C-alpha cells in the first residue's frame, strides 16, 4: 500500500480491522463469528484514546490486537495494524514477541490475577525490560523504584521484594502500571484497570495512572465500560457496540454533545424515579446487635450491627469490599451464626444456625447473587430451575407447576420459550432474571440481593433494577440490597446503612443519609463516585477528608 508510510507523530494506525473467532455452540456445527467489523482508529504519540462499550463490544479484542494477541482462538483475519510505521500483522510470531513488552505493554483488569503468585513483584516488573535487553537489571530496578514512587506506592524501595499476595488490590494495580511503564514502551493498553477496585480505591489508582501517563509521555488505549472514568483520562473517546464503531470524537464532544443515539443513552444518567417510602411501624426483619467472626478468629467481621427492614421496602447496605456487607447477609440467612445478637423475622427470633431453622423460615428468606451463572445448575433448564422452589416448598408438580413457571417467566418479562433453555444459552441479564424468578417462586417476604447488578452492563443493570422495583410493588416483598454502587442505591433504596470495617457508620432514611452534614467515610464514599465531568478527578482528590482504606 502506498499509504503505509505513517504521518510523523502517528504511533498506531489500525485500518479496517476484522477479528473472528470460531465458536462451538452445544449440539450445533462449529461456526465462525465476527467479533470486530472493519474498525479503524489512529493514535498519536503521547495521546490517550478511550475505548468504551458494553461487554461484547470488542474493546479488549481491539486493544489486544495492537500487540497481535487474540484470546482463546480469536483471530485477526483482516485489516492492518500499523505500529511505528510498520504493519505488525506481517511480522509473524517472532515479530509479535519483539514488540510485546517493549513497544506495547498491557495492564490487566485484575492485577491480583495477572501477577504470578510464585515470583516477587520486582522480578516480574523488570522481566520485560531484561528480556528485550532495554536495560540492565540494576538500571531496570532503579527505574522501577522511581516508578513506584511516582505511583505513590508505600515503601517504594522495598515493595518490590514482596509477593503479590502481600500487597493490596489497589496497590497491585499500580505496581502493574509500573510494570508496563518499566520497559519504557510507546503504547500501553489499559484494560479496565480500575473496574475491579472499590470506588474509593479506584480514584487513587486513576489519579496515579493519569499522572504517570502525563509525565512519561506514553500513549495509551484506555478500555472501560465506565464513561465517567474514561472522561477523566482520555483525549479522545471511541464508542463501540457489537464490534462496530458507533462514534469517535474528542472527550468533550462525546460527553457533552454526543451525535449518536447509543452514545446519548450511555451518557445520560439513569436515575429511576423512586419515591422514598416512610418506614412502617413493625419491621419484617430486625437485626439486633449482631457481632460475628469467621472461624475462631478474634477479628470481628461484624461489630454490634443493628438494622431494620420494613415490609415492602428496600434497605440498601453500602460499603467497600471487606466492610462486612455480605457477612451481614450470611448472618441473616444463618450461614454464619452470629456470636452475639439475634435476628428477628416477622416477630419471631430466627435460629442462629441454618440447621435450626424450619423450612418455612427458609422459604420466607430468599437470596439472589452477584454471579447469576454460577448460582444456577448449568445442566438444568430454566423451567427446572424456577420450578424447583415450587416443588420443594409447596409440593406443586405437573401441569400446575408448569403454569406457575410460565407465570413467573411472564413476571420477569421473559417469554414461555425460555422454559427449555439452559443457563449457558442466556445473556447475563436474562440469567439474573431467572434467578429473580427462582427467588420469587418461594413467595418470600424478604429477598437479599447481593451485588445483583454489579456484573452487568449499565443499561442491562438498569432494566434489572426497574424489574425489581416493579415486583416489589406487585408482591410487597422487602429487599435487603447489598451494593458498592451509590448510583444504584439512589435509584432503589428507602433506607440506607453505610458500613465501614464491620460497623454501621450511618443509618437512616435515604433522604437523610444522602444529605449533609456527612461523616468522613460517607463523604469519601460519595465524593469517590466518578462524575461525567472533565476535571472531576482533580477536584475530588483535592476535596478529600480521609484516605481510603484500600491504600
Amino acid at each position, binding site marked *: 500500500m502506498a499509504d503505509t508510510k505513517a504521518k510523523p507523530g502517528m504511533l498506531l494506525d489500525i485500518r479496517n480491522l476484522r477479528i473472528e473467532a470460531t465458536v462451538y455452540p452445544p449440539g450445533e456445527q462449529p461456526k465462525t463469528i465476527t467479533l470486530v467489523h472493519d474498525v479503524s482508529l489512529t493514535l498519536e504519540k503521547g495521546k490517550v484514546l478511550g475505548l468504551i462499550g458494553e461487554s461484547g463490544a470488542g474493546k479488549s479484542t481491539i486493544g489486544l490486537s495492537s*500487540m497481535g494477541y487474540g484470546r482463546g482462538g480469536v483471530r485477526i483475519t483482516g485489516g492492518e495494524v500499523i505500529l511505528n510505521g510498520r504493519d505488525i500483522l506481517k511480522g509473524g510470531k517472532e515479530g509479535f514477541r519483539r514488540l510485546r513488552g517493549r513497544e506495547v*505493554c498491557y495492564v490487566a483488569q485484575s492485577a491480583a*490475577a*495477572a*501477577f504470578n503468585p510464585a515470583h516477587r513483584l520486582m522480578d516480574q516488573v523488570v522481566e520485560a525490560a531484561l*528480556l528485550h535487553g532495554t536495560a540492565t537489571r540494576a538500571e531496570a530496578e532503579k527505574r522501577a523504584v522511581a516508578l513506584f514512587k511516582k505511583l505513590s506506592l508505600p515503601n517504594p524501595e522495598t515493595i518490590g521484594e514482596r509477593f503479590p499476595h502481600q500487597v493490596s488490590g489497589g496497590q497491585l494495580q499500580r505496581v502493574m502500571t509500573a510494570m508496563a511503564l518499566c520497559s519504557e514502551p510507546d503504547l500501553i493498553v489499559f484494560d479496565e484497570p480500575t473496574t475491579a477496585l472499590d470506588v474509593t480505591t479506584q480514584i487513587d489508582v486513576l489519579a496515579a495512572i493519569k499522572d504517570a501517563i502525563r509525565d512519561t509521555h506514553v500513549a495509551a488505549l484506555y478500555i472501560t465500560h465506565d464513561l465517567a472514568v474514561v472522561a477523566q483520562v482520555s483525549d479522545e473517546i471511541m464508542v463501540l457496540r457489537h464490534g462496530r464503531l458507533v462514534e469517535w470524537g474528542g472527550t468533550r464532544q462525546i460527553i457533552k454533545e454526543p451525535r449518536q443515539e447509543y452514545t446519548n443513552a450511555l451518557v445520560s444518567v439513569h436515575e429511576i424515579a423512586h419515591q422514598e417510602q416512610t418506614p412502617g411501624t413493625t419491621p419484617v426483619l430486625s437485626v439486633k446487635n449482631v457481632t460475628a467472626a469467621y472461624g475462631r478468629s478474634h477479628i470481628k467481621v461484624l461489630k454490634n450491627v443493628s438494622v431494620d427492614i420494613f415490609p415492602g421496602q428496600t434497605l440498601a447496605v453500602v460499603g467497600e469490599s471487606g466492610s462486612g456487607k455480605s457477612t451481614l447477609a450470611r448472618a441473616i440467612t444463618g450461614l454464619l451464626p452470629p456470636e452475639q445478637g439475634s435476628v428477628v423475622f416477622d416477630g419471631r427470633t430466627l435460629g442462629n444456625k441454618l440447621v435450626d431453622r424450619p423450612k418455612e423460615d427458609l422459604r420466607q428468606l430468599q437470596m439472589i447473587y452477584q454471579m447469576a451463572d454460577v448460582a444456577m445448575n448449568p445442566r438444568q433448564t430454566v423451567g427446572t430451575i424456577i420450578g424447583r422452589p415450587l416443588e420443594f416448598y409447596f409440593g406443586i408438580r405437573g401441569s400446575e407447576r408448569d403454569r406457575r413457571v410460565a407465570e413467573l417467566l411472564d413476571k420477569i418479562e421473559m417469554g414461555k420459550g425460555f422454559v427449555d433453555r439452559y443457563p449457558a444459552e442466556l445473556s447475563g441479564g436474562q440469567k439474573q432474571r431467572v434467578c429473580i424468578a427462582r427467588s420469587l417462586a418461594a413467595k418470600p417476604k424478604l429477598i437479599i440481593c447481593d451485588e445483583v447488578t454489579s456484573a452487568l452492563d449499565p443499561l442491562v443493570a438498569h432494566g434489572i433494577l426497574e424489574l425489581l422495583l416493579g415486583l416489589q410493588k406487585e408482591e410487597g416483598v422487602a429487599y435487603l440490597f447489598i451494593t458498592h454502587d451509590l448510583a444504584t442505591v439512589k435509584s432503589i433504596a428507602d433506607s440506607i446503612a453505610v458500613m465501614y470495617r464491620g460497623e454501621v457508620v450511618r443509618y437512616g432514611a435515604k433522604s437523610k443519609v444522602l444529605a449533609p452534614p456527612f461523616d468522613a467515610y460517607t463523604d469519601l464514599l460519595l465524593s469517590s463516585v466518578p462524575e461525567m465531568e472533565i476535571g472531576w478527578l482533580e477536584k475530588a482528590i483535592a476535596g478529600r477528608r480521609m484516605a481510603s482504606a484500600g491504600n
Partner: protein
Amino acid sequence: MSSPIVKLVAQRVALGILLLLAVSVLIFAGTQILPGDVAQAILGQSATPESLANLREQLGLNQPAYLRYFHWLGGVLTGDLGTAMSSGQDIATSIKDRLWNTLFLAFWAAIVAVPLAIILGLIAVRYRNGWVDKLISGVALASTSFPEFFIGYVLVFYFAVQHQWFPAISTVYEGMPFGERMQAIALPAAALTLVVLAHMMRMTRAAILNVMQSAYVETAELKGLSAFAVIRKHAFPNAIAPIINVVMLNLAYLVVGVVVVEVIFVYPGMGQYLVDHVTKRDVPVVQAVGLIFAAVYISLNIIADIAAIVANPRLRHPK
C-alpha cells in the same frame, strides 16, 4: 521463614510417625492372625507338645500379644530386627547391604526418570494437542501399560542377548568398581524408568495445562516471552505441588515396587530378599521388610507434603 511453616511441617512429621506406629501394629497383628506360631514353624514335623511348650517358653511366646509387640517394637527402635528363622542370621545385618542396593538402583532410576518425565511433560504442554504431544503421551502410556516383566525381558533380549552391551543378570557385590556397578544396573534401571515415566509425565502435563489458563500466563505472553519460557518460568512454579506428589509416589514405587524387576534381573536387593523369605514363610523377615517399606513410603509422602508447603509462597512469606 516463620512459624506457620514450622508448625505445618512439625504437624506432618508427627502425623507420619503416628501413621508408622499404626502400620507396625497392623503388621504385627497380621502375623498373629496367621495360623500357627513361630515355635510351630521352627519345629515343623518334629513338633511334640512338650517341645512346643519349651520353645514357646524360650522365645517368650507365652507372654500376652501386646507385651510381645512392645518387645518387637523396642527391638526395631534400637536396630534389632530379630533373627531370620530359615537361616538363623541377624535380619538387620542381611538387610543392610540389600537395602543399600535397592536404594542405589532406585536412586539412579529416579535420576533419569524424574527429570525426563518433567521435561517431556513441559514439551508436551508446549506442543499441546499437536503430534509431538500425542507421540510423547502415546509412547509413555504404552511403556507403562506393559507389565514390568515384559519390558524387563524385552530389554534383556535386545541389549543383553542380541547386542551384549549389558549383562542380563545384575550381580553386584561389595567393593565392585562404580563403573561396573552402573553397567550392571543399567537394564533394571531402564525397566523401572519406563514403568514410572508416564504417570509423572501425564501429571506434569495436566498440572501445567491447568495453570496455563491463568491471567498471569497471559501477562507473561504479553511481555514477549517465548512459549517455552512462559511454561518454564510462569506456569511450572505454580504447578509444582501436584507434580511433587506424583513424583514422590513414584519414587516410593521405585523402592517398594521393585520386587518383580529385582527378581527378573536377579538383583540382590530388598525385593529379592522379600520374595525369598515369603516362599520360606519366614515371618520375622517379612515383618521387618514390610516395616521398612512402610517407612520409606510414609517418609517420601511426608517429603512431598513438606515440599508442597514450602513451594507455596503464601505459606513461605505470610503477610
